[in-house]
C-alpha cells in the first residue's frame, strides 16, 4: 500500500447521522468475494445520493455525519467507498470497526469537532476545494484551517503505507513467542490440542 500524500480536491457533503454499513454496502451484495470493483454497490439503495455525487463530479472527500460507518464489520463498506472514488472521510465520530477498516485500506477517516465540521461543510457546499494534510491533521479550505484527528498508530501506518501483518511479524515475532510460552504454562487448557514445538 503506498503511503499517504497530501492532496487538494473538492468534497461531497452527506449531512446525516448514523449512516450504517448497510446503507453504504447493502448486505445482499456481500456474496461477492472479491474486493476490487465493489464501488458499483456503494449506496446502492440511495439513488438520489448517488445522482448528487455524480453531478458533483465524484469528489474524493466525504464530509459525513456522526457515527458514520456504524453497524456491521463488513470491510466491503470501505472497499466500495474506495471503489466509488473516495480517499478520505471526515465525521464527528465513526463506527469503530469501520474506522479500523479504513486505516487498513489507506482510507483517511478523520474525526472533527461537530462545529468545525459544520463550518467546513458550508465552505465545501459552495464549491471550495479542501487541502488535506494527514501529518499535520489539518484541512485547509478557503484560507482557513480545520483540525481533525486520526489515532496516532493509524496515522503512522497511513503515512508510511505499512503492511500491518508483515510488520507485526517482523518487529514482534519474538514477543509473541514469549507471550505464548508464558500462557502455555499459566493457562494450559488453552493449549491442549498443540504439542510444544
Amino acid at each position, binding site marked *: 500500500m503506498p503511503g499517504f500524500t497530501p492532496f487538494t480536491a473538492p468534497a461531497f457533503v452527506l449531512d446525516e*447521522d448514523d449512516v*450504517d454499513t448497510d446503507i453504504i454496502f447493502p448486505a445482499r451484495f456481500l456474496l461477492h468475494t472479491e474486493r476490487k470493483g465493489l464501488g458499483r454497490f456503494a449506496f446502492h439503495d440511495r439513488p438520489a445520493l448517488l445522482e448528487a455525487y455524480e453531478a458533483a463530479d465524484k469528489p474524493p472527500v466525504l464530509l459525513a455525519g456522526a457515527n458514520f460507518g*456504524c453497524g456491521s464489520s*463488513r*470491510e466491503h463498506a470501505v472497499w466500495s467507498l474506495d471503489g466509488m472514488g473516495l480517499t478520505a472521510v471526515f465525521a464527528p465520530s465513526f463506527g469503530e470497526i469501520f474506522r479500523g477498516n479504513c486505516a487498513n485500506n489507506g482510507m483517511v477517516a478523520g474525526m472533527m469537532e461537530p462545529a468545525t465540521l459544520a463550518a467546513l461543510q458550508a465552505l465545501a457546499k459552495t464549491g471550495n476545494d479542501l487541502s488535506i494534510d494527514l501529518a499535520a491533521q489539518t484541512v485547509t479550505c478557503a484560507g482557513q484551517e480545520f483540525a481533525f484527528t486520526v*489515532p496516532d498508530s493509524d496515522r503512522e501506518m497511513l503515512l508510511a503505507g505499512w503492511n500491518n*501483518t508483515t510488520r507485526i511479524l517482523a518487529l514482534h515475532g519474538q514477543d509473541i513467542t514469549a507471550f505464548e510460552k508464558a500462557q502455555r504454562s499459566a493457562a494450559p487448557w488453552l493449549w491442549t490440542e498443540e504439542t510444544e514445538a
Partner: protein
Amino acid sequence: MRDVMTSQSAPKTLYDRLWDAHTVVRGDAGKDLIYIDRHLLHEVSTPQSFELLRDNALTVRRPVTQLAVPDHAVPTSERGGAIKGELARKQVALLEANCAEFGIEYLALEGERQGIVHVISPEQGFTMPGISLVCGDSHTATHGAFGALAFGIGASECGTVMATQTLWQARNRNLRVHYAGQLQPHVTTKDMILALIGTIGAGGGIGHAIEFTGEAVRAASIEARMTLCNMGIEAGSRVALVAPDETTFAWLKGRPRAPQGAMWDQAVAWWRTLRSDDDAVFDRTVEIDAAAIAPQVTFGTSPDQVMAVDGTVPAGPARALDYMGLEAGKPIAGIGIDYAFIGSCTNSRIEDLRAAAGIIRGRHVAEGVTAMVVPGSTVTKHQAEAEGLDKVFEAAGFAWHHAGCSLCVAMNGDFVPEGKRSISTSNRNFEGRQGAGARTHLASPAMVAAAAIAGRIVDVRKEFA
C-alpha cells in the same frame, strides 16, 4: 493470565484485567498489541483475509485456535444438496477450500455443529471465560457474556489474526451499566439492551467497553446474557461483558471443547478471579431500573429509535418515520405487521424458542402474516425438536427452518419484500436490512410471537398475561 501472579496491583475492572492478561506489547502510539486466543470464521468476511495470507506468502500461526462455519449466506428453507444460488454456493465452497488449504477446522453445512458463529461457538465450548476471541462480525461481543474479551473485526484484521495471532488495538474506556431490581414477567434481556441503546444512543458507547452488572444481570441465564452482550455494538461498543459466575461454569461444564478433569478445575480457579474489583473505577456508569422496563419495540431505522410498547411514536426523525410509514403521536401498539421473524444471533437459542412457543401454544398466526422460526444452530434445532417445539410452531402456522442468519441479514434467499412490515428478534432495523425497502421493528421473542398471533404490535404483558 499473568494477572494471576500479580495480585498486588491497582484496582481493575474486568475489562482492564482481560486486556492486561492479553497484552503482548504496550504500544506508544495509543494501541497495544493484543494476543488473540480464538478466531471464528464465516464465509462472508474471510475470502479477502485468505487473499491477504496468499499475497504475503503467510501461513496460519495456530490453526487449532480457528473455527469456521457457514451461516450468513446459507439458505434456511431447505438443506441437503447443492446450494441453489450460485454466488452463495461459491462463497461457501470457497470457505471450505480456504480452510482445507490452511488447515482450519470447517464445520460443514450439513453437519450437526453448524449454525450462526455466535451460537455454535459457545455451544461447543469454543468460547470460554477469560479468553480473547475475535470474528469478522460485529456481534462478536456476544461472547462477552462469558467474561471473554470478544470483539468484531474487519476482513484485513482476520488475516492479521490468522498470521500473527495478534492485533494492534486501542484500549477502551470503561462503561458500567448497572441494572438494579428484577424484570417484570415477559420482559427480557432483549428489552434491557434496547432500553439502554435508547438511553445512551447508537453512538453512546463508542470508545467504551461495557460491563453489565446488577441483580437483573446476575439472575439472567447464559442465553439471556448473550442477548444482552450481543447488541453492545448497537450502542457503539465493540466489547460488552458479564463477569463469569457459577451460572457460567455450570453452563459450560461438559461441552465438547471445554476443559476437562484437572484442567477444568484449574481453569475455573482462574475464571473466578475474572471480575471487577469492588473499588475499580469506571469512566462512566449508567444506572437502569430493571423493574421499570416495559417491553421495547423500535419505531425507526436505528436501534436507538426505540420505545416502550405502551407508548406513542415520537416526533421524529422524519426520515425514519417516513421510511417506516409511521405517524408521530400515534400508539405503536396496534400497527399491523406482515412478517414475524424469530431468529438471529441475538435471539435464536433454546430459551428464546421456548419463550416464543409458550406464547403461541394453542393459538394461530393471524391471517396474512408470514411467520418463521430459524434456530441459531442445528444443535438448537434438534433440541427444540426433541422438546416438541417444532410441532408447536408449525401447528400455529410458523415455518420451521434450518439454522442460519436468515432474515437478520437477508442475503440468503430469505427476505422481507419492499414496503412490508416485519417484527423481528434480530438486532438491526437499518434501512434495507431485511430486504430493500423492508420495514423492521426489533423486539423480544415473546413480543414477536405475540405480534404474529395478533397480526399487529401488541403488549405481550396484556394480551398474553
